[in-house]
């Protein structure tokens, strides 16, 4: 495949940045999108140009690092995949592919396609945990009976890898699917009940502080999420937040 790539290049956080056109040739349809980017970067390095900076780590859809906005969609046109799982067979020979970083005020660009998603870390630090005494007397997890449906739903929420595709896809740059998933994974389990009130209040307060937008329920986040996190998690967070504010 021969392709034209329109890629966002930005030297650093203060640089204005611009779209730059590149040509790549002999791309196999079996390559992953990141392998195609590797080919481009090798080509740039051989010419003495600066390679395109992009985030990646596990390259198997688990780490949530890859964060490209491809042809107007987070992680590209395929469904239920991260950018590293996106294959070049999704494109045609001669295509022009637009590649941009995830855009949100709360995700400032560090360089080229790399964005700073530490706002997600700060939201997690605000309440996305349970406090457990791990001094050696920890209770066996299996000793606490949990409804199978609740356990499955909590596990579905916990599959969120925090990649930020929800924020990138949302026209409002809202992080509510991410926060909703993190709140839900504890709200559904007995271990999460003790700190439930503080958790949701602190996580929502931090989310608002980071400058994410308000959810208007377009559902774009759910469609683009590589892990299929459901909008039900946002509804659950809304209920938890209301309940927490009534209680304290």
């Amino acid at each position, binding site marked *: 495949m021969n392709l034209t790539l329109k890629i966002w290049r930005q030297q650093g956080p203060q640089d204005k940045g611009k779209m730059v056109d590149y040509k790549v040739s002999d791309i196999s349809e079996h390559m992953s999108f990141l392998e195609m980017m590797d080919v481009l970067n090798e080509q740039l390095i051989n010419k003495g140009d600066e390679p395109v900076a992009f985030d990646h780590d596990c390259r198997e859809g688990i780490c949530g690092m890859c964060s490209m906005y491809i042809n107007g969609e987070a992680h590209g046109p395929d469904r239920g995949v991260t950018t590293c799982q996106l294959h070049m067979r999704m494109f045609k020979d001669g295509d022009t592919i637009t590649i941009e970083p995830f855009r949100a005020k709360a995700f400032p660009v560090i360089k080229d396609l790399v964005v700073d998603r530490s706002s997600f870390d700060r939201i997690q630090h605000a309440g996305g945990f349970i406090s457990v005494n791990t001094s050696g007397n920890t209770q066996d997890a299996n000793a606490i009976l949990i409804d199978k449906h609740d356990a499955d739903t909590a596990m579905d929420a916990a599959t969120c890898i925090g990649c930020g595709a929800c924020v990138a896809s949302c026209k409002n740059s809202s992080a509510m699917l991410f926060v909703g998933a993190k709140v839900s994974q504890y709200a559904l389990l007995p271990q999460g009940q003790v700190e439930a009130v503080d958790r949701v209040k602190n996580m929502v307060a931090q989310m608002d502080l980071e400058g994410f937008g308000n959810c*208007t329920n377009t559902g*774009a986040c759910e469609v683009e999420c590589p892990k299929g996190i459901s909008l039900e998690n946002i509804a659950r967070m809304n209920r938890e937040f209301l309940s927490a504010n009534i209680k304290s």
Partner: protein
Amino acid sequence: MSGFLNSSIGRKFTMALSALFLMLFILQHFAINILSVFSPDSFNEISHFMGTNPLVQFALQPVLLFGVIYHFVMGFILEIKNRNARTVKYYKNNGAANSTWMSRNMIWSGGFILVFLVIHFIDFWFPEINTKFIQGDMSGLLADGEGYRYYEELTHKFVPVWRVALYCVGFVFLSLHLLHGFNSAFQSVGANNKYIKGLKGFGKAYAILIPLGFIFIALFHHFNH
């Protein structure tokens, strides 16, 4: 609760509550208006009751006005905040791949509804307030004293083609707004589970049939006057 009301979720929640209230009001408004097609006398009777009952006029009407103003003002405030949450726009954004046109353009359909509402107030509400509370005529009677004036006033308004066309366009925007807004309101108040899924079909039916009914009423009076 002040923290709740100033939070992103709190604002969503109050937007949804005002939306649910307004949707109930629209249903009641439609139920009264459709009477004008089948029974002008009943329409006159209930219009007079609604227009002169102290509970409706001095308790429910202020709540309605607050709901309308709150929904529009908060809608615009949230839109500005949301636009500020992405300072650099995408070079290419394929919103149609993951969301409906209606959900992405609530501010536009809402803006057109606001324009329509201003015209609607000038047509009906302001003259009504003038007659009752400025001129002090609470009788609801025609100038010649022969029966109530409400049916005559309604049908007279729908004589000009331009006004009928304007109202039809206004109701189309109302339908587009409700097609996303109905289910969105339930999601915002946290009502999204297996029990509530059946509401989605009802929401679509409401969003299409109620505005269609209003269009029918406008056209009926235009062609039967």
